[in-house]
């Protein structure tokens, strides 16, 4: 365990490992996304209540899921960083935040578009929508805080604590449709009983969710590579790496 942490906790080793993981994850992620996309658009029968309109669920629910999943992973990394002081954990949080912001934006956007024909309104201030909006603002707040503090060590610590405080929002989002009266429909697959959807309709949803999570790991690897270059730009191994690239491309 300790050996593992020390090996992958080193930014240099992680830089090269991340490149390899990106290449391995790219194709499976694409395959799952295609299954979800084609299945959701073409092969799934229309819904009894919502007609064809429910097909937005295959974009909306997985991106909302991912936005919450990314936040929980950031919280786990924050604990790892605060307890064991592992630099890569702090970089992982920084790499994840913009992705989380993008996908929570996508969830809000598609939610508004789905709300218009089904509820007759783009937006209402009810529990689910408001708590999802707060998640989006938490991501933006994290990015702002990280870029406002120039001292890396202070910045990493402060933003890790911010992430941990925001965790309280996750159960609120999840249970908001149960605790409060809302226009939003109840949970479809994230419940302990069997999914509230027919198997013939649910498989593109699983495809999209698996595909998007793989995609997140994939692009988090790219972003963490940038983060490592930004932070370790002056170290010897980065200069050697860049020199090698310069020689190869004759820059």
């Amino acid at each position, binding site marked *: 365990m300790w050996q593992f942490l020390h090996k992958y906790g080193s930014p240099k080793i992680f830089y090269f490992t991340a490149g390899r993981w990106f290449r391995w994850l790219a194709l499976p992620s694409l395959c799952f996304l295609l299954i979800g*996309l084609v299945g959701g658009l073409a092969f799934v029968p229309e819904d009894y209540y919502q007609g064809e309109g429910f*097909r937005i669920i295959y974009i909306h629910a997985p991106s909302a899921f991912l936005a919450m999943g990314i936040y929980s992973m950031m919280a786990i990394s924050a604990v790892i960083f605060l307890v064991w002081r592992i630099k890569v954990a702090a970089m992982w949080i920084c790499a994840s935040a913009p992705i989380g912001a993008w996908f929570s934006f*996508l969830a809000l956007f598609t939610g508004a578009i789905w709300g218009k024909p089904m509820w007759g309104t783009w937006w209402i201030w009810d529990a689910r929508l408001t708590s999802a909006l707060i998640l989006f603002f938490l991501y933006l707040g994290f990015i702002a805080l990280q870029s406002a503090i120039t001292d890396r060590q202070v910045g990493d610590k402060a933003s890790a604590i911010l992430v941990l405080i925001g965790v309280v929002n996750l159960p609120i989002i999840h249970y908001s449709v149960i605790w409060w009266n809302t226009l939003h429909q109840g949970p479809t697959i994230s419940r302990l009983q069997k999914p509230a959807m027919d198997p013939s309709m649910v498989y593109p949803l699983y495809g999209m969710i698996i595909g998007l999570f793989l995609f997140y790991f994939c692009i988090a690897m790219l*972003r963490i590579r940038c983060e490592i270059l930004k932070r370790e*730009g002056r170290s010897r191994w980065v200069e050697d790496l860049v020199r090698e690239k310069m020689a190869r491309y004759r*820059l």
Partner: protein
Amino acid sequence: MMANTITNFFHMGGYGIYIWISYAMGLLVIALNLLLPLWQHQKLIKTISKKIQQQRDVHETYS
């Protein structure tokens, strides 16, 4: 018959516009999230290589 199927597919029972905007936005977000870090990586490599080049130039003028 074929043309009819295609029109029906894009029409989506009247929900066409909502569905296609959602899916287009989804694709856009995925594409941007893939491209932005790739561009940033390239830019970082370029900045660092420029710095190395400058150091080399300084070194050459003083030696």
